[in-house]
């Protein structure tokens, strides 16, 4: 399980879990699960496009996730956000089917991009992810208070000069960047589970923002580590365990909250 070819996977998964836990808490607090689902899924055609053009996958992913962020914020100006998100996601995925069919021999790649492939991580892949991850964490650290304020009370934040529109855009950019880098490793569909599950559980367990942040990161790490171990032992895909564990954490946290309320 800790053989040398797995080490890179463990390191990568750890970086991604820390990020997903931190970004995810704000996704949950801001009620942006749909956007957090749509961005990675809409970014995955970027990998197919990069494959067609023969450039590095990461650039394709970042480009498409940027397109998604701009599309969602543009359309959401005069439309409900859930509708805008759905439409942008569909436009990007539609392009994805085209790229996939034009590049032909890509069936196995699709499965990996959607559901992740942790074993084949190389040392060279880790550095850009680590760098980008640090940038995102620093950005969250600097913006923690204004971000929290605008999340919990948009009106109060507006009187302090924090524009809700700009915060939305900036935050979506963060989500987009985080998903673009996590995508090749854990897969488009599971980045999302990792963002929403642990964070939602953390939010049910505590009301204090800083504690919730630590708890969210901790649960995300636990989810990823346990999933890798389980996937290694059972030879089932890691995505299955991530999805199941995330849902299980949420369910347990909800139950414990109900118990505490009843007590």
């Amino acid at each position, binding site marked *: 399980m800790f053989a040398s070819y797995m080490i890179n996977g463990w390191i990568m998964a750890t970086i991604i879990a820390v990020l997903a836990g931190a970004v995810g808490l704000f996704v*949950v607090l801001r*009620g*942006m*699960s*749909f956007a*957090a*689902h749509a961005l990675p*899924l809409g970014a995955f055609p970027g990998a197919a496009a990069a494959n067609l053009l023969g450039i590095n996958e990461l650039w394709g992913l970042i480009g498409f996730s940027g397109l998604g962020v701009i599309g969602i914020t543009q359309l959401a100006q*005069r*439309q*409900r956000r*859930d*509708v805008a*998100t*759905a*439409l942008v*996601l*569909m*436009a990007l*995925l*539609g*392009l994805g*089917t*085209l790229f*996939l*069919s*034009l590049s032909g021999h890509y*069936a*196995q790649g*699709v*499965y990996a991009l*959607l*559901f992740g492939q942790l074993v084949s991580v190389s040392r060279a892949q880790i550095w850009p992810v680590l760098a980008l991850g640090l940038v995102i964490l620093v950005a969250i650290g600097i913006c923690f208070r204004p971000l929290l304020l605008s999340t919990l009370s948009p009106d109060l934040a507006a009187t302090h000069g924090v524009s809700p529109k700009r915060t939305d855009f900036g935050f979506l950019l963060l989500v987009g960047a985080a998903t673009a880098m996590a995508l090749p490793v854990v*897969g488009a*569909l*599971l980045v*999302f*589970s990792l963002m*929403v*599950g642990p964070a*939602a559980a953390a939010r049910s367990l505590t009301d204090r923002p800083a504690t919730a942040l630590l708890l969210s990161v901790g649960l995300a790490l636990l989810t990823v580590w346990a999933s890798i171990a389980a996937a290694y032992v059972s030879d*089932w*895909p890691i*995505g*299955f*365990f*991530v*999805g*199941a564990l*995330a*849902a299980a954490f*949420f369910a347990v946290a909800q139950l414990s909250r109900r118990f505490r309320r009843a007590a």
Partner: protein
Amino acid sequence: MSAKFPDAAMSVLDLLFAPGFFASAPVQTALIIGSAAAIVSALIGVFTVLRGQSFAGHALSDISSAGGSVAFLLGISALWGFLGVAVLAAGALELAGLRRAKERDLVTGIVLGAGLGLTALLLHLDIGTRSSGGAAISVMFGSIFAIPASMVLSMLGVSAVAVLLIGLIYRPLLLTSLDPNLASAQGVRVHAVGLLHLLILSLAVTLSAMTIGAILSTALLIGPAAAAVQIARRPGRALILAVLFGLIATWGGVLLAYDSYAWTPGQAWPVSFFITSLAFLIYLGARLWKRLPIARRTAEA
């Protein structure tokens, strides 16, 4: 034929409809199935957009991919796989508390995540047993041309049930979608109607997952409906417009995909790409139309 039409007109027609379009059996099946899926999705889509449940609609279709994978694994018809899992997922969403608006987004996300995890596992098993990576593509992205003609009857049956249900609960469904408080004051059982909405939604999702694939079926559900809601001022008109837009996107998509054989030699572009893109373009068109002065005048009149 060429005696009737001048040559120039014939060649334009040929350019529009590549030779053999109307005679091809898969095209005929695709047009029938596609129309049924487009109509049902557009109708229920209008209510889904009004209720602000696009995410739930998308989640149902994504999760139904687990059903497609199960069907592939067991060797049964994909229709029943999609249908079974979509209905189950609708039940799970309801149980998990979809009706509390505050938690809706989150609960949908968690159920969606768990469902997708299941799909990952099932597709993994598919690939393991049948050693074909194509399962992921066909379940996720679908192909309307690959539907066997024998499925037409059952798919039309599912569509008929869905349309009938919409007709039966039309008024309470509309009222709860527009103003749940008013509806409940008038004695409408909001909760039961919500559950029926989810059920019809899963029928629609099943049909469109069969035609354009599980993760793209939201395009037929939300695209035409969102465009229609932008333009129309009355619910009845929105429903008619949505159906019209859905049909245009589907027929246009089938036609363009058929024509595309000629564009890149020997390789057709995917139907799903054309249908989703057309749906998106129609929506953008509807937004532009709303800004035109003529649209404002008719709206005021």
